[in-house]
Structures are given as structure tokens and as C-alpha cells.
């Protein structure tokens, strides 16, 4: 069995399209997207006068005129993993002032985009027998779960143990607390209890793969810049200070159950392979903002892991 794993594409439509094409490209039977599908920001395109739109793109104020230019601007916004949103000046003012309304709009736009993505998956994978498993990550709002659950060509394995060929895949989107207070975070003790409950569903004697969005603590797959309380990178001597930020719960569960393989994401800059106990853990990292998808191709056979290769597609 050949499995392709990637994660953390954060709203990049180019990466999503590449993910769907990865099965044919790498001759994989199984595709796994390990969380954090959705974009991180909403970019309003404010209609200042009929046919003229203003937007803040990557810190730069831009004004475009005409439908074609507006569509091109939307495409550029999407390329960076953000969601474009056309609105009037009145609506923009409401978005600025009314947090609840803004949250509603963000959730609606996010949900619509994920629906569009699952439709794209159906279109691209309909004629193949590739299994496509896509789960949310800690950054994804809960609203997308029902979209993923309802999708016909995509399976959401989050919070379940599913059989994949001769193996069983245990999946969890949850992470330990982060400085951003993202939607799916739990204190370490609760996260460990949640993962243990999930592990209780494992079938004895069947090789397991743990698809846990958050990497194990202090594994080398969880190294990120230390942040101050106001989310600035701590620098000493001009260099960012790098610290482990993974989950002790994830580490404990892996060490206890010794799955064949651990698939992780979450920490984009910590791409690599590490052995935790007897388990090979992989984090392919992420550079989604460049329209490039970081992934790993894993060959499994006879209950053993044959080889793995990091790829950048």
C-alpha cells in the first residue's frame, strides 16, 4: 500500500488541487490530509463605487476596477490561503464594528469554500478507487465537520479508528493549548484521556497508524519559535529562540501503544522524521503560502513500513 500524507494547507486552493492529484502523481492508493484545511484570514474587497474595489493584500492597499481585475485580485488572495469577500462600504463598516457578524461571515465563507473543495474532490476522484481521508486540524472551525462528513468522495476520519487496507488509522484533530486559542485545543491531561479513549477502539493484532495533527512533544518534529505574550517571536542575538511545542499527551499515547507509524503536522517549520519509542513519526511541514504542498510518501507492506520519502509537490 502506498500512502500520501500532507497537512496544513490553510486555505490554499492550489495545494488542495495538488493534494487531490497526488494519488495519480505518486501512484498512491491512499490520500491522508492531516488537518488545518481552512484559511487564516478574510480579505474584504470593498466596493467603493460601482465596479471599483479596494482591498488590503499582504499589507498593501490595492484598488482594482472592473470584474476581470477583481477576479484576478480574488485569485491572488486565495493563492496566499486567505478568503476574499466582496462587500459594500456599509457592510465593511459592520464587519469592522460587529465582531459577532464578522465571525458569522468568516464561518459562512469558510464553510462555502470547504464545500467547493469537497465538490472538487468528487469531480477529480470520482473515477478512481483512491481512498481520500481528510480531517480538520486545531485551526479549523467545527462548522466544516459536517461538510466533510457529508462529502461523497472524502472521508473524515477524525475521532475514529478506521481500517485502511491491512492497517488501522487512528485520527485526531486536537492539539495541546497554543498561544492563539484555536478552536480545537485541550489541556494535556484531557487530550491524553481523549486519545486513550480512542486507542481503546484499536483492534489487537492489526498494525496501527496514528494520524494525530499535533506532533509528540520534544520529538524534533515540534520545534517552533518561542513567542512572547503578545505573539512576537523571541529573538536572542537576532536569531529566533526555538523550543519544542508539541504535545506530551501525544507522546505518551504513542509510547504506550507503539503504532507502526505516526503522521503529524501542525508545526510547519519542523519538517522531518523522528523515532518515538518504536514508532517512526513523520512531519512533512508546510509551505502552503507558496502554492507548494509538502508531503510524505510512505510504502507499507505485510504489516511493515518499507520506506518513506518526503516530497514537495
Amino acid at each position: 500500500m502506498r500512502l500520501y500524507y500532507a497537512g496544513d494547507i490553510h486555505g490554499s486552493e492550489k495545494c488542495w488541487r495538488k493534494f487531490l492529484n497526488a494519488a495519480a502523481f505518486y501512484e498512491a492508493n491512499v490520500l491522508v490530509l492531516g488537518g488545518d484545511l481552512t484559511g487564516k484570514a478574510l480579505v474584504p474587497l470593498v466596493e467603493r463605487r460601482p465596479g471599483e474595489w479596494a482591498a488590503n493584500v499582504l499589507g498593501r492597499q490595492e484598488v482594482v476596477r472592473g470584474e476581470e481585475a477583481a477576479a484576478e485580485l480574488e485569485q491572488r488572495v486565495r493563492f496566499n490561503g486567505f478568503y476574499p469577500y466582496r462587500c459594500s462600504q456599509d457592510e465593511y463598516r459592520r464587519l469592522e464594528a460587529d465582531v459577532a457578524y464578522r465571525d458569522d461571515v468568516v464561518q459562512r465563507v469558510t464553510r462555502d469554500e470547504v464545500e467547493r473543495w469537497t465538490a472538487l474532490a468528487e469531480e477529480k476522484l470520482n473515477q478512481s478507487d483512491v481512498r481520500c481521508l481528510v480531517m480538520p486540524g486545531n485551526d479549523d472551525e467545527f462548522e466544516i465537520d459536517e461538510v466533510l462528513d457529508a462529502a461523497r468522495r472524502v472521508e473524515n476520519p477524525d475521532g475514529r479508528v478506521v481500517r485502511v487496507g491491512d492497517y488501522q488509522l487512528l485520527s485526531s484533530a486536537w492539539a495541546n493549548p497554543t498561544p492563539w486559542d484555536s478552536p480545537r485545543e485541550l489541556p494535556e491531561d484531557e487530550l491524553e484521556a481523549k486519545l486513550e479513549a480512542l486507542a481503546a477502539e484499536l483492534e489487537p493484532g492489526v498494525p496501527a497508524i496514528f494520524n494525530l495533527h499535533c506532533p509528540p512533544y520534544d520529538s524534533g518534529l515540534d520545534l517552533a519559535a518561542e513567542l512572547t505574550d503578545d505573539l512576537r517571536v523571541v529573538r536572542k542575538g537576532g536569531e529566533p529562540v526555538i523550543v519544542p511545542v508539541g504535545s506530551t499527551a501525544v507522546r505518551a499515547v504513542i509510547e504506550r501503544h507503539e503504532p507502526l507509524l505516526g503522521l503529524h503536522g501542525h508545526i510547519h517549520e519542523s519538517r522531518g522524521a523522528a523515532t518515538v519509542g518504536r514508532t517512526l513519526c513523520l512531519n512533512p511541514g508546510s509551505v502552503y503560502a507558496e502554492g507548494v504542498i509538502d508531503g510524505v510518501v510512505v510504502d507499507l507492506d505485510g504489516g511493515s513500513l518499507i520506506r518513506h520519502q518526503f516530497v514537495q509537490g
Partner: protein
Amino acid sequence: MTEATARTTAVAPRMFERQATGLVRQAGALDVLVYNMNFVSIGLMSVLVFLYSTAFYPGANLYVMALLTFAAVIPTSLVFAFFAAAMPRSGADYVYVSRTLHPALGMMSSWNNTAWWFLYGGVPSAFFAYFGVGPFFSVVGERTSTDWMVRFGNWSQTALGAFVVGSILIATLVVIFILGLRLFFRVQNLLFALGLVAFLLIVFTWLFQSTETWAGHFTANTGQALGGELDKAATDAGYVGGGPFSLKWTFLAGTWVYINLVFNQSSAYIGGEVRRASRLQLWSMPIAAIVTTGALLLLLGLADKVVGLDTFGKIAAATGLPFTSVAAQGVGSTVLAALILALFIPWSYTWLPGQILNASRNFLAYSVDGLMPRKLGEVNPRTHTPIYSLLLVGAGSIGALWLFTHWDAFAALVGIFGFILGFGIVSIAAIAFPYRLPEIFESSPVRWRVGGIPVMSIVGGCSLVALGCMAWAFWTDPSAGIDGKLSTKILNFAIFGSGLVIYFVAKAVQRSRGLDVSQRFKEIPVE
């Protein structure tokens, strides 16, 4: 055709971020500036300029030299700044060239830098002995009549002494890096500040000192008479400075500035994830070059006022004293002299920590990519550091130190030609970037055009021209160790080409294991 414009608006909408990980605030302007200035090293640049540019370049005007070199550095600096804005993440040239041109060329460019960082480990560690430890012990020993200090200081400046002292420095840094970077960063800020204090002490001393006062103290402390005796000793030692202005020699003298100044783009290696922060990179790199060139001009002006640049060149040729020793021996207070020399020691090797760190990080990256043995990619679970990569770089640096101290052909400037070849590939990538990766370019904050031509391509072209000029300078400069030396010419081109060899050898080795390295870099079709 639909009209599209990009201009600043009076009423500025903003984007709304979700509660999502990774959205960090941008590095402070000062952080990035200091990072780049650390790599440029005002201290080492000044040592090299006063020691060599003043003495061995007939008709060189050092003020014009500083400005010409600055002009030659800026286009390459902007190439990195534009790339850092468009693809803001760690990796710099490896990422830029791999993505824009070809992975094999990316490996070639990156390996070229890694190999020279590796080899250059020997140069600043020798400088530590030659310009830091040695002068401190020699001068303070002489001024206080302490024989063991004089003996140790003089021995530190011999080939064997520099090798031993430099090896201890390399070993110490590698051990510190293995134990974790926190310890190093805690120490580095303090050391940088100490070096800055030494620099300021010299500036303030010269600012208020007369030529007569300096000359009186210098002659009294060193026994080195100025005037005819110095002229003869300098000429015997190869001094050729002074004389009518020569543009050629002025430009060639700038090789000693360029070796430092061209590394003002080092913050390209520490890009962030979200591109809204990336415009900071655009100006931080040129500003670092402006500040350091300004500091050099200030020091040149003060040295000219107090010592005279011609006299400086003669002292440099005749005695080999670094400018710190010239300043220290020119003051009456032994305490002040000791302070200047002691506090300057941390600035005598400032390239070294960055070289070791960058080279070891690259080895780790190659390993993860399957281009180097997997062992080099192992990170120690206790210290979170790549022990095997660090040990390899440390051992290589000690080997390079032996070469630098014992092999005359390995001059301090010998590898900059190789770096220029690598920068050339990055510049070509900059020219091609808007056409090869239009989506990333158009989505970046640097998608400017002049007359329909992307500014980034224009900057890449200017950089190629500037690099061509500097390549000629390093090829021609007798002090650069390339002119007339086949071995160092071969070394530069061999290292440049060896990245390609490594790429294809690794590809063959991995293929025998059932892995296809080329697949590692192939882009998945979007449609």
C-alpha cells in the same frame, strides 16, 4: 481590456484574521537590522581594510572604495530582499533557486555556500588568534612588562598558535551549539555589545586625539619610529600605497569590504510564514549595508585625521598590526589600551558562529531531503540540536583552519569568488522568477513593473553586472589568492560544480534503495 491599478488609497480596508496558529507579529525592524549587521561585522571589515586596503593598492582612494563597493553590493542585496519578500521562509538561496530554476541548481548554489561556510570556518577562527587574542596579550604584556603575556600573544599569532587557539574556539562553539542555542544567544548579545564598546572607544579616542599625541604614544609604546624608518620598513614589506588616484586599484581594494558587506542579506535565512511581514526585509538589507558603510567611512575619516591613511598603510605593511592595536598603542593609558583590545576580541571572529550554524542547518536539510546520510539529520532529543551535523562542521572547520594557517594559497579572500558564482545563480533566478513562477510573483508584495518589465528582473540583471565586476576584482586582486594560482581557481570551480555531482550521486544511491530523489522536487500538476 479591464483596467487594473494598484495604488495607495485614502480609506484603507484591512483583513480580518481568525484565531489560527502561526500568525505571529513581524520581527522588529531593529532585530532584522542587527541580525544582518552581525553578519557584516563592522569590526572585521575595519581590520581587513586598515591592514590590507591601505597598504597594497597603489593610488586607491579608500573613501571612493567604500562607496563603490557599497554600490556593487546593493543590487545583490536587493535580489535577496525581493526574494525574501516573495518567498519569506528559511532556506534562502536553496529555496529560491530550487523553486525558480531547478532543484539540481538549487543544490549546487546551496552546496557552494555550505562548502565555503565549512571551509571558511578556518578563517575567522584564525582571525580570533591573529586580531583578537594575540594583539591583546602582546600589547598588554608589553605595556605591563609581563613576559608570559607577550610570549603567549606572539605565539598565538604564529601558524601553530593560531591553529591551537582557533581550534579551541571552534570546539567551544560546537559544544555550546550541541548543548543548545539558548546558551549561545545569551552570550552573543553580551559579546556583540562588548565589541561595540571597543569600536566606540576607538572612535571617541580618535575624535579627540591629535596626530602629535597619537604619534608620541605610538612610538613610545611600540618603539616603531615614524617617518623615514617606517617608510623603508614598509617598502621592504611590500607597501605600495599612496600615489596618484587609480580607479582600478580603488575598486580592487574594495574586495576587503565586499567580503563583509555582501553578507548584509543574511536575514533572508529567517523569513516568516505570513507575507504581510515581508516588506521589512526589503529595506532592512540595504539599510544594514548603509549603516556599516557609514561606520567604515567614519572610522576611515577619523583614522585619516589622527594617523593618516598613508601612515596607516605603512604601519600595516611594516608591522602587521591590526587597527585596534594601532589605536591602543596610540593612547597613554594602559587600562584604555587593554579595554580596547579585550573588548574587541568578540568581534574578531563574528562570522564563525553563523557559519557553523548555517552549514549544520543545511546538512540537516540535505539529510531530510535524502541528499546526505540520514545520520546528519538526527536531532538530539535532549538538546534539540543536530549533533552529527555540528560535529561534522566543527571537524571540517578545524581542518580548514589548519589549511588557512599552513597553506599560503588559502587566502582570506579566496572563496569569495565562489560565493559570487553562487550569488550569480540567485540573480539569474531573480530575473526568471516573475516568468517562471508568475503566481507567486503576482501574489507577492514586490510585483512592481517599470515599462512592463518586472523590477525584480531588472534588479537581478543589475546584480549580475555588479557580480561580474566583483568577480573580475577577485580574479585580478593579487591579495585574493586566485590571480596566478591554478589550485585556488580549480578549488572555486570544483566546489561550485560539486553540488551538482552530489545531487546526481545521491539520486543514484537513493534509486538503488527504491527512492526517487527527483520525485522529491517535482511539482504536482494543479489541473
